[in-house]
Each structure stands twice: as C-alpha cells, then as structure tokens.
C-alpha cells in the first residue's frame, strides 16, 4: 500500500508540480516548434510519452547493471544518448511495420525525439533521484503525460491566438514565450499540493 501511494505521488508531482516543460525547462524546442495545431501537438506528445517510458526503463537497467556495476560513470552521457538514439530508431521501425496510419501521423517528429532534451534529462534525473525500477518507469510515464498536457494546452491557445491582434514585433516566437510564462505562473499554483 505504501509503495502504491509513493508511486501515485511520483506521478502527480511529475505531471503537475515539477512539469518537465513549465518548471524544469526540458523539451522547450518541440514545445515552441510543434505547437501550432492541437492534433499534431497531441501526436507528438504521445510519441514522446512512449519513448520516455521505454527510455526510463532501459537507462535504469543500463545504469544499474552495467555502468554502476563496472564503475564506469564517465560513460553515462555517451551511453545514454546512444541508447536513446537507437530506441527512437527502433520505435520508428516498429510503428512503421505495425501501424502505418500512426506512422504517417507522426511523420518527421519521430526521429526528432532523439534531440529532445526532455528525454536525456529524464535519463539523467533518474540516477540523481535514486528511483527503483518501477518508480523510474512511472516517473518516465508521468514526464511524458506532463509534456503532452503542456504542449496540447499551448497548441490550443495558439490556435485561438491566430485571430488575435498581436503587435507585429511580438508575432511568432515572442508571444508564444510570453504565453508560456503565464502558463508557468498558473502551474506555480500546484506547488505545495503534495510534498514528495
């Protein structure tokens, strides 16, 4: 029971309180780049969630059974990025074979997930937080859900903004950043909701 409560706490705090995008600044590039339409933003979020969950599991295994067991901490960055790159490649091939429709919907976004700093950030945060295997997987899944939520909300706001009267100099990136700031302020309201 205690274990279950701990898992729920990790999930809620990753999604709402320490949201990867709005309070940790991870994954800002896709957040600004792929948030013009709700539909694409949502599929990007789903693909990222999928890769994040797998990354959390596989980097935990590698870190615990290879890097820590053989005392090779200096290979952490190099090995994590290789794992992530090959994982994304694998997911791409798998989706292409099993569900061509989904593959088409995700398109160019799939390979770009490799350079999403939220993924490497997630892999590096797990050893820092000292999570066990199940906690890591929940942490990865929660991070993905939080990312999906932030990017979909932003896309919804930007779709509406198309009809707004924005000053010329602020069009595009600047106004998006200012909206993200206001969203981050709103998310600050969640801090203190629970303590982990």
């Amino acid at each position, binding site marked *: 029971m205690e274990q279950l409560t701990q898992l729920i706490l990790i999930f809620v705090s990753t999604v709402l309180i320490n949201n990867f995008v*709005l*309070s*940790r*600044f*991870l*994954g*800002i*590039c896709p957040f*600004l780049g792929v948030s013009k339409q709700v539909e694409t933003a949502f599929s990007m979020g789903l693909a990222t969630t999928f890769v994040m969950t797998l990354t959390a599991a596989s980097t935990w295994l590698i870190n615990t059974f290879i890097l820590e067991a053989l005392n090779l901490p*200096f290979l*952490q*960055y*190099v090995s994590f*990025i*290789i794992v992530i*790159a090959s994982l994304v490649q694998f997911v791409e091939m798998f989706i292409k074979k099993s569900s061509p429709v989904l593959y088409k919907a995700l398109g160019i976004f799939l390979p770009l997930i*490799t*350079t*999403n*700093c939220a*993924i*490497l*950030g997630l892999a*590096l*945060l797990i050893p*820092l937080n000292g999570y066990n295997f199940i906690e890591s997987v929940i942490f990865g899944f929660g991070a993905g859900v939080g990312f999906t939520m932030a990017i979909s909300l932003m896309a919804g706001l930007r779709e509406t903004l198309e009809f707004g009267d924005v*000053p010329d*100099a*602020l069009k595009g*990136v*600047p*106004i*998006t*950043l*200012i909206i*993200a*700031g*206001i969203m*981050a*302020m709103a998310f*600050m309201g969640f801090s203190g909701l629970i303590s982990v």
Partner: protein
Amino acid sequence: MNQVIKDFKNGLWQENPIFRLVIGMCPTLAVTNTATNGLAMGLATSFVLISSEIVISLIKKLIPTNVRIPSYILVIATFVTFTDYFLKAFFPSIASSLSLFIPLIVVNCLILGRQEAFASKNPVHRSFADGVGMGIGFTWALVLLGSVRELLGMGSIFGLQILGEWYRPMIIMILPAGAFISLGILVGIMNLISRKVN
C-alpha cells in the same frame, strides 16, 4: 581572410542563435537566473561548440553519410563529458548551480545544427571562425538575459548590488515564469531593432 571574418560576424547578430534563430532554448531559459550562471553556461557551450566544429571539420571525409548524426553526437558527448569533469574539479559551485544542464549540452540543437549546417561542409579555419562567432553570439545573449533577470529579480548584476534598499525585488523574474516572459519581451525588442536597422 574576408570570408573568415564574415563567418565570424555571422553569429554575432545576423544569425544570432538565440535572438534570431531561436534555437538552444532549454539552457537559455533554465540557467539565466543570474548573469554569472549565464556567462558560465555560455562559455561551456562555446567550448564544446568550437572543439567539436574543429574535430568534425577535420574528420568529415572519414564519416559515412548514413551515420553522420550519431557520429556528431558521439564527438559532442565526449567534449561535454570533458567539460563536466573539468567544471566539477575546478569550479564546483558553478557545476552545482548548472547541474543537469551541463550534460544536456549534448542535445543542444545549436551545436548539432552547426555541425550539420557548417562544419561538415567547410574547411577547418572557417569552421573555427564560425564556432567562435556563434559561441560569442550565444554567450552575450545569455549574459544579457541573465543580467535583466538578476537586476529585476534581486536588484544586482554579477552579484553586485545595483539597485538600492528602496527596490522591492520581483521574485517572479528569477522563477521559471519570469524566464519565459523576459525572453519573450527581449526577442520582441530584438525584432524591433533589426527592423529599424534594415
């Protein structure tokens, strides 16, 4: 020689990574709560950028086209590991305040982008000039953003108290929300300036 100077100047304003191209946003927003952190992050990124541009420009003929991106990432990750250990050994306080964002230089789109767009196509002296220009362009933008946030959020710049007792610090500026808003306004101002210049 003229070509080299042109490559160098390119990153300073015309293709400034932060204000004009808007890439490499994660560290830009995350570590600029003070001017000192911004400067440290700028220098660390510049070092990795310049060294990997030199190496990749030297070995570009040996890398097969199909596996070029993984090869670039490997070179970059090696230099990042080196930078991380160097900072931990000689500047532990800076290393702990930048923490996670030193290893994340590996996936900074600016660095990978310059390898693909410039170093893989140009000779080593031009790649070096491009790296130095882009590095300085990235660093000054980070220092500017860090100074604005530190001044409004704590009343100081580089830890020196500028504003007196009368100033009530806007704590929001050193929190995540302030990072987004101040960068948004700065990019807007830069858009205005570049329009005036043209």
